[in-house]
Protein backbone atom coordinates (compact mmCIF):
# COMPACT_ATOMS: atom_id res chain seq x y z
CA UNK A 1 0.00 0.00 0.00
CA UNK A 2 2.71 2.45 0.95
CA UNK A 3 4.76 1.45 -2.07
CA UNK A 4 1.79 2.14 -4.38
CA UNK A 5 1.41 5.60 -2.91
CA UNK A 6 5.12 6.30 -3.29
CA UNK A 7 4.99 5.17 -6.91
CA UNK A 8 1.88 7.24 -7.52
CA UNK A 9 3.49 10.28 -5.94
CA UNK A 10 6.59 9.95 -8.06
CA UNK A 11 4.52 9.77 -11.25
CA UNK A 12 2.16 12.55 -10.18
CA UNK A 13 1.23 15.01 -12.92
CA UNK A 14 -2.11 16.41 -11.84
CA UNK A 15 -5.25 15.54 -9.91
CA UNK A 16 -6.88 12.45 -11.47
CA UNK A 17 -10.53 12.13 -12.40
CA UNK A 18 -12.67 11.66 -9.30
CA UNK A 19 -16.05 10.00 -9.89
CA UNK A 20 -17.49 11.83 -6.86
CA UNK A 21 -17.07 15.16 -8.66
CA UNK A 22 -17.74 14.57 -12.35
CA UNK A 23 -18.94 18.04 -13.34
CA UNK A 24 -17.28 21.32 -14.11
CA UNK A 25 -17.61 22.69 -10.59
CA UNK A 26 -14.65 21.21 -8.71
CA UNK A 27 -14.99 23.30 -5.55
CA UNK A 28 -16.10 20.32 -3.51
CA UNK A 29 -13.17 18.31 -4.84
CA UNK A 30 -10.73 20.95 -3.56
CA UNK A 31 -12.51 21.18 -0.20
CA UNK A 32 -12.72 17.42 0.21
CA UNK A 33 -9.02 16.86 -0.46
CA UNK A 34 -8.02 19.69 1.87
CA UNK A 35 -10.11 18.15 4.65
CA UNK A 36 -8.84 14.66 3.85
CA UNK A 37 -5.22 15.75 4.07
CA UNK A 38 -5.62 17.27 7.51
CA UNK A 39 -7.80 14.43 8.78
CA UNK A 40 -5.29 11.89 7.47
CA UNK A 41 -2.45 13.69 9.23
CA UNK A 42 -4.39 13.89 12.46
CA UNK A 43 -5.42 10.22 12.30
CA UNK A 44 -1.99 8.86 11.43
CA UNK A 45 -0.25 11.07 13.96
CA UNK A 46 -2.62 9.85 16.64
CA UNK A 47 -1.76 6.26 15.71
CA UNK A 48 1.92 7.13 15.71
CA UNK A 49 2.31 5.88 12.13
CA UNK A 50 4.21 7.56 9.36
CA UNK A 51 2.02 10.18 7.69
CA UNK A 52 3.80 10.14 4.34
CA UNK A 53 0.78 8.59 2.51
CA UNK A 54 -1.21 11.74 3.33
CA UNK A 55 1.03 13.56 0.86
CA UNK A 56 -1.24 12.35 -1.97
CA UNK A 57 -4.11 14.51 -0.71
CA UNK A 58 -1.82 17.47 -0.30
CA UNK A 59 -0.62 17.21 -3.91
CA UNK A 60 -4.20 16.94 -5.17
CA UNK A 61 -5.50 19.96 -3.27
CA UNK A 62 -2.46 21.98 -4.27
CA UNK A 63 -3.31 21.17 -7.90
CA UNK A 64 -6.98 22.04 -7.57
CA UNK A 65 -7.40 24.85 -5.07
CA UNK A 66 -6.71 28.54 -5.66
CA UNK A 67 -3.82 29.72 -3.49
CA UNK A 68 -5.94 32.39 -1.82
CA UNK A 69 -8.34 29.74 -0.52
CA UNK A 70 -5.48 27.63 0.85
CA UNK A 71 -3.98 30.64 2.61
CA UNK A 72 -7.35 31.66 4.02
CA UNK A 73 -8.08 28.18 5.32
CA UNK A 74 -4.60 27.84 6.83
CA UNK A 75 -5.07 31.12 8.67
CA UNK A 76 -8.49 29.98 9.87
CA UNK A 77 -7.07 26.73 11.15
CA UNK A 78 -4.36 28.61 12.98
CA UNK A 79 -6.94 30.89 14.59
CA UNK A 80 -9.35 28.08 15.33
CA UNK A 81 -12.16 29.46 13.14
CA UNK A 82 -11.94 26.84 10.39
CA UNK A 83 -15.50 25.85 9.42
CA UNK A 84 -14.84 22.26 8.41
CA UNK A 85 -14.59 19.24 10.65
CA UNK A 86 -11.01 17.97 10.92
Amino acid at each position, binding site marked *: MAEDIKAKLENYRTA*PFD*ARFPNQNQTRNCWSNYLDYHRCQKA*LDAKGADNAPCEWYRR*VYKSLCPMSWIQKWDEQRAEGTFPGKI
Partner: protein
Amino acid sequence: MLATVRKQLRSHPALIPLFFFIGGGTVMSLMYLARLGLRNPDVCWDRKNNPEPWNKMAPTDQYKFYAVNIDYSKLKKQGPDF
Protein backbone atom coordinates in the same frame (compact mmCIF):
# COMPACT_ATOMS: atom_id res chain seq x y z
CA MET B 1 -62.14 25.87 -15.07
CA LEU B 2 -61.58 22.36 -16.39
CA ALA B 3 -65.09 22.42 -17.89
CA THR B 4 -64.29 25.63 -19.79
CA VAL B 5 -61.06 24.14 -21.10
CA ARG B 6 -62.88 20.95 -22.13
CA LYS B 7 -65.54 23.01 -24.00
CA GLN B 8 -62.90 25.01 -25.82
CA LEU B 9 -60.94 21.89 -26.73
CA ARG B 10 -64.03 20.34 -28.26
CA SER B 11 -64.30 23.22 -30.71
CA HIS B 12 -60.55 23.36 -31.32
CA PRO B 13 -59.27 19.80 -31.09
CA ALA B 14 -55.97 20.72 -32.69
CA LEU B 15 -54.93 22.20 -29.38
CA ILE B 16 -54.72 18.84 -27.63
CA PRO B 17 -51.08 18.11 -28.64
CA LEU B 18 -50.21 21.45 -27.12
CA PHE B 19 -51.29 20.18 -23.71
CA PHE B 20 -49.29 17.01 -24.15
CA PHE B 21 -46.11 18.79 -25.09
CA ILE B 22 -46.32 21.51 -22.48
CA GLY B 23 -47.35 19.03 -19.81
CA GLY B 24 -44.57 16.65 -20.81
CA GLY B 25 -42.01 19.46 -20.70
CA THR B 26 -43.15 20.54 -17.25
CA VAL B 27 -42.99 17.00 -15.92
CA MET B 28 -39.51 16.48 -17.32
CA SER B 29 -38.21 19.72 -15.80
CA LEU B 30 -39.65 18.87 -12.41
CA MET B 31 -38.19 15.38 -12.57
CA TYR B 32 -34.75 16.78 -13.37
CA LEU B 33 -34.96 19.20 -10.46
CA ALA B 34 -36.01 16.35 -8.18
CA ARG B 35 -33.06 14.24 -9.37
CA LEU B 36 -30.70 17.12 -8.72
CA GLY B 37 -32.13 17.74 -5.28
CA LEU B 38 -32.24 14.13 -4.13
CA ARG B 39 -29.53 12.23 -6.03
CA ASN B 40 -26.77 14.75 -6.51
CA PRO B 41 -23.94 13.88 -4.12
CA ASP B 42 -23.08 17.57 -3.67
CA VAL B 43 -26.42 18.24 -2.00
CA CYS B 44 -26.56 17.74 1.76
CA TRP B 45 -30.01 17.70 3.38
CA ASP B 46 -29.15 16.36 6.80
CA ARG B 47 -25.97 17.86 8.21
CA LYS B 48 -26.09 15.91 11.42
CA ASN B 49 -26.62 12.35 10.16
CA ASN B 50 -25.26 12.50 6.63
CA PRO B 51 -22.71 15.30 6.56
CA GLU B 52 -20.66 14.38 3.48
CA PRO B 53 -22.80 12.48 0.98
CA TRP B 54 -20.14 12.58 -1.73
CA ASN B 55 -17.95 10.30 0.34
CA LYS B 56 -20.57 7.57 0.11
CA MET B 57 -19.97 7.10 -3.63
CA ALA B 58 -17.81 4.24 -4.84
CA PRO B 59 -15.11 5.16 -7.38
CA THR B 60 -17.08 3.36 -10.09
CA ASP B 61 -20.43 5.10 -9.49
CA GLN B 62 -21.61 7.12 -12.47
CA TYR B 63 -23.77 10.13 -11.78
CA LYS B 64 -23.77 11.73 -15.22
CA PHE B 65 -26.16 10.47 -17.85
CA TYR B 66 -23.61 9.87 -20.56
CA ALA B 67 -19.90 9.20 -20.16
CA VAL B 68 -17.91 10.30 -23.19
CA ASN B 69 -14.38 9.03 -22.59
CA ILE B 70 -14.31 7.64 -19.07
CA ASP B 71 -14.42 3.89 -18.52
CA TYR B 72 -16.06 3.77 -15.11
CA SER B 73 -15.39 0.10 -14.50
CA LYS B 74 -11.63 0.72 -14.46
CA LEU B 75 -11.57 3.49 -11.86
CA LYS B 76 -10.12 2.88 -8.42
CA LYS B 77 -9.88 4.84 -5.20
CA GLN B 78 -6.90 7.12 -5.46
CA GLY B 79 -5.92 8.34 -2.03
CA PRO B 80 -4.66 6.18 0.83
CA ASP B 81 -6.96 5.00 3.61
CA PHE B 82 -6.55 6.39 7.09
